[in-house]
Structure formats: C-alpha cells, structure tokens
C-alpha cells in the first residue's frame, strides 16, 4: 500500500524537523543559520553550547521518551489485544517512577548514577510482570485495566508517603518533578545512561513483533499457528519494561503517549500490531517533541511540565477510545 510505504519515512522526516525546530526556540533567539552552523560545526562557542548542551539534548530526550513509550504502548496493545493498554494506564510508569524516587531518596543515585535507570526498570518490570501474570489468569481486559489502576494508586500512595517524609522542600520539589514528568535540563549524560536500556527494550520488542500479528487471532489460535506464547509474553513484557523504565528514568512518568500514537497509526497499517510498532514509536516521539515545544512557548509564569501537557491531550483521547469500543470484544 502506498500510504503504508511512505508512513515511516514521512514520520522520520517530521521527527527530524521537529527536533530541529526545538533547537530554534529558547530564551536566546537564534536564527536558523546559526543553529545549522552550531549543529554542523563552525558556530561560536556560545551558540554551540546553547544548542548542544541545552536545546538538542532536551529535544532528543523528548523524542526518545516518546518513541520508547509509543513502542511499548503498541507492543502491549498487541500482546493484550486491547487498544487501551499503555504503560501509563497500566500503572507501569507510576511504579517505575516510584522505584526511581526511592533510589533518589536513599541517595543511591548520588553514589552511582546508573542505579536510577536500573531502579526505574525494576519497577517497570515488576508492574508488567504482575499484569502479565494477571493476563494469563483472566481473559477480561477490564480486570487488567483495574489492576493497572490499582498499581497506579499504590505507587501514588507510596510516593505520597515518601513526600510526606521528605526531609526538606528541595527533595520534595524533586519528587514532584518526577511524578509530573519533564525533559527540562536534560544532558547527553542522562540520555546516554537511559539510551542503552531503551535500545535493548526496543530491540527485543521489534525482534518478537511477528508474534503480535499472530495474537490478532486470540491466544488459542495463535498457539495453533505455531506461536510460542510463553516466550512472546516474556519478551514483550521485558521489552516494554526496559523501554518504559528507561524512559521514566530520563523524564519521569509521562502518561497516555503510548495510547494515542498506536491508535492513529493502526488504520494506516491494516490494523496489524507488528506493523504498527515502528510508526507508533516515531509518531509518539514527534508528539512529545511538539508538546515540549508547546510547553516552552506557552507564556506561563512557571513552565508547564511535559507530563501534564501530555495528559491534558492524552486523557481525553483515552476516554474517547474507550467510549468508541463496542461491547463484546473483551
């Protein structure tokens, strides 16, 4: 199909353009020519610093976080055969950010920076593991989403407890940042810490994506055509856990991104979960970069948090998708 062939290149180009646009915006106005010069060498030291140390890492972080969440969302939707499955909705992001906060709170991160992504990933894996265990035992997706709500609430409660006990207003502000989700002030160091885990998760999800197509038939028939169901579940859960956990380590909990992108992409790829993975990742990355540009140009006193903006757009979309669903499919 023609639209399908152009989908990935078009989204890729749009993503690159959005990242470039994000490099143009900031408190020091830089014209296009100076940004290009800074990106490809030959600009003043000041310009280079602004673009390479502040704007580009922030835009890239938004893109990577969006891509990881979009990919995880599309894969979890394929695995659970439900368009409402998403790391944020299922409580995976909240659990990951709880674990990340704990590692910050107890000073583990100060001792060794890599404990932050590892803690977030462990949290994400625990949540995805609980969900998959539940998915094996129950056929009802409503139950699964309720478990996700429970995980979110529990992680939220534990987070409140930590805030309650917070020793000083600074750590409190830190924790709030974490629950709201933001990519402000990210550096290439932080990206470098999260990126390998994201890449590993993405690789695992893409490697096992064919099985998601088979799951369109339902688990029983998918086993019938030769799918190793146990391995598929394991790989998807670990892949989504790695990607989501790493994105939480980089930006905190940003919800609903992984639900909107696959929903838009699906009709363009004949509703095949496997073919929806890459376009969903690219679209979600694009979405977060644009949302982050919005956060920066909105004339508010306090800069809005990216996670707040994503939820303001994403939550109504979630409700709309849920209301569109016909009965009997669960």
């Amino acid at each position, binding site marked *: 199909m023609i639209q399908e062939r152009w989908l990935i290149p078009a989204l890729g180009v749009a993503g690159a353009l959005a990242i470039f646009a994000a490099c143009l915006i900031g408190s020091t106005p830089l014209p296009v020519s100076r940004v290009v010069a800074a990106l490809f060498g030959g600009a003043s030291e000041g310009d280079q610093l602004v673009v390479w140390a502040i704007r580009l890492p922030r835009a890239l972080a938004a893109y990577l976080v969006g891509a990881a969440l979009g990919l995880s969302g599309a894969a979890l939707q394929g695995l659970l055969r439900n368009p409402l499955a998403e790391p944020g909705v299922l409580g995976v992001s909240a659990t990951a950010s709880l674990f990340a906060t704990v590692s910050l709170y107890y000073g583990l991160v100060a001792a060794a920076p890599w404990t932050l992504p590892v803690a977030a990933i462990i949290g994400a894996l625990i949540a995805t593991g609980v969900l998959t265990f539940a998915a094996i035992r129950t056929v009802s997706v409503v139950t699964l989403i309720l478990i996700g709500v429970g995980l979110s609430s529990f992680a939220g409660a534990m987070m409140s407890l930590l805030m309650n006990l917070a020793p000083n207003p600074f750590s409190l502000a830190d924790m709030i940042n974490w629950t709201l989700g933001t990519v402000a002030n990210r550096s290439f160091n932080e990206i470098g810490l999260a990126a390998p885990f994201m890449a590993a998760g993405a690789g695992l999800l893409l490697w096992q994506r064919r099985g998601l*197509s088979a799951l369109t038939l339902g688990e029983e028939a998918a086993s019938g055509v*030769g799918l*190793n169901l146990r391995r598929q579940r394991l790989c998807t859960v670990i892949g989504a856990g790695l990607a989501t956990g790493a994105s939480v380590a980089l930006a905190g909990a940003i919800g609903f991104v992984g639900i909107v992108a696959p929903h838009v992409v699906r009709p363009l790829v*004949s509703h*095949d979960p496997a*073919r929806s993975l890459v376009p969903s990742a690219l679209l979600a990355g694009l979405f977060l970069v644009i949302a982050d540009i919005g956060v920066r140009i909105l004339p508010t006193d306090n800069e809005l948090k990216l996670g707040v903006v994503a939820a303001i757009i994403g939550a109504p979309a979630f409700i709309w998708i849920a209301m569109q669903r016909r009965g*009997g499919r669960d």
Partner: protein
Amino acid sequence: MTELVVKDLTVKAKDELLVDRASISLRTGELVALLGPNGAGKTSLIRASLGLERAAGGNARLDDQASDEVPPKERARKVSYLPQERPLAWPAQVRDVVALGRFSHGVTLGKLSQPDADAVERAMVACDLGHLAKRSVDTLSGGERAGMHCARAFAAEAPLLVADEPTTALDPRHQFRVMDLISRFVAKGGGALVILHDVQLAAQYASRLVWMKDGRITADGPSAETLTAERLEETYGVKAKVNGLRIEMEGAL
C-alpha cells in the same frame, strides 16, 4: 504419512477428571468426527493431544514424538489447529488473517515471500474468498468468516487438520460448504479430526466417528457401525430413530 496417535490420555483440571484414559488416532487420508455432548471433554482431549494442555497421564505422539515436546512451529507445520471461533482482536484484512496461517513458515504480514503468497492465494481460491481479500474482517458475515478460518488453516499446508466445531453458528448451506472444504482437503491427501455437534452432518462426511461421554471414548468406528439409536440415547440422552446413516431425532429423554 503424518499421524497423531493418542493412548490412554488423561486430563485433569484441579481434581476434576476432564478426559479419562482416552485413545484416539488421526492419519492422513481420513476424516474423523469427534462427537459428544457439551462438557464431554472433546476440546480438552484435542488440546492435550496437540500438547497445548498438560496431560495428567497417558501419551500423545505426533509422528513418534511426544506432542508436548514438539516445538510450536514444527507442530503447526504438521497440524493446523482451528479452535472454536473467537472474535479477532483487530479489524484486520482477510488476506492478512489467511496469511497468519503460515506463521510457522515465517510469514511477515505486508511482505509475503513468493511461496507464502502462493500458498495464501491457493487457500483463498479453494475457499472462494478471492473477492474478499482486501475486506476488513469485521465486515464479514458468519459464513464468510468461517470460510476465512478454513482458508487460514489450509494456507499452512500441513498434512493434518484439527478443527473444534467449525460449523457451529452457521446456516445449513454454510455448514455443508465448510464440510465440503474439509473433505476436499482430505481427498487431496490430508487428514482431518473435526469436533461436530450435528451428528447427521458427521455421519454424512466422516469416514470414522469417535463418540465421547464424561471424558471417556465410548465408541470408535465407521459411521455405519457406530451410529445406532442406542448410542445416541446413551451419548446425548435423546430419543432417535436411525435408518442407515439417516437420523430422525424425536426429542430429549
């Protein structure tokens, strides 16, 4: 020749006995109908035979290898399994669903290799689905969907087919159509084991009837030998007259 041989298979769910020392076999060249009332253990028996459900005793062998030790892909290349129809998760395209039948051959949707595309095409033509190729599954009628699932099973080009109630919820014409497709598959050298609720349909098409009740196989043999009024009464609790392969049901006992 490919064969599935099951000996004294027992399946339990917690403490309940679902299948009790059942023996059944399927070879290429025969169409076997598995009959029995609801809850007789038919589905459990075929699932355990294929290694999809754990057996508590006995053994099931697919070409002399224990079924539950055959890797899923290899098993799918020997036996196509059509479970009871469930709604699809996404409104996929008919051709894609048929192509999923070749999952065990490594099919990638949207990028079919030539052998895959040919097999899918043959299966679609055999099941008269050519005109529906690009349609979305949720626009199909029940009869068209049944045809699509048959095509999906045939696309695998496996020597054996195991189908769980492929004719349920179909009108009489489509029931005959599905059974015609399956018997054509058998005539071309395949072997099929089909769970049916319509005894008349089974007697008409099957070369052998296997009767099951309360987890046990009660009879196994050609229709002419095993189809009797007493067996219908004992298996289903119905009063019926049998004249050759013709059945006249009179009502529940």
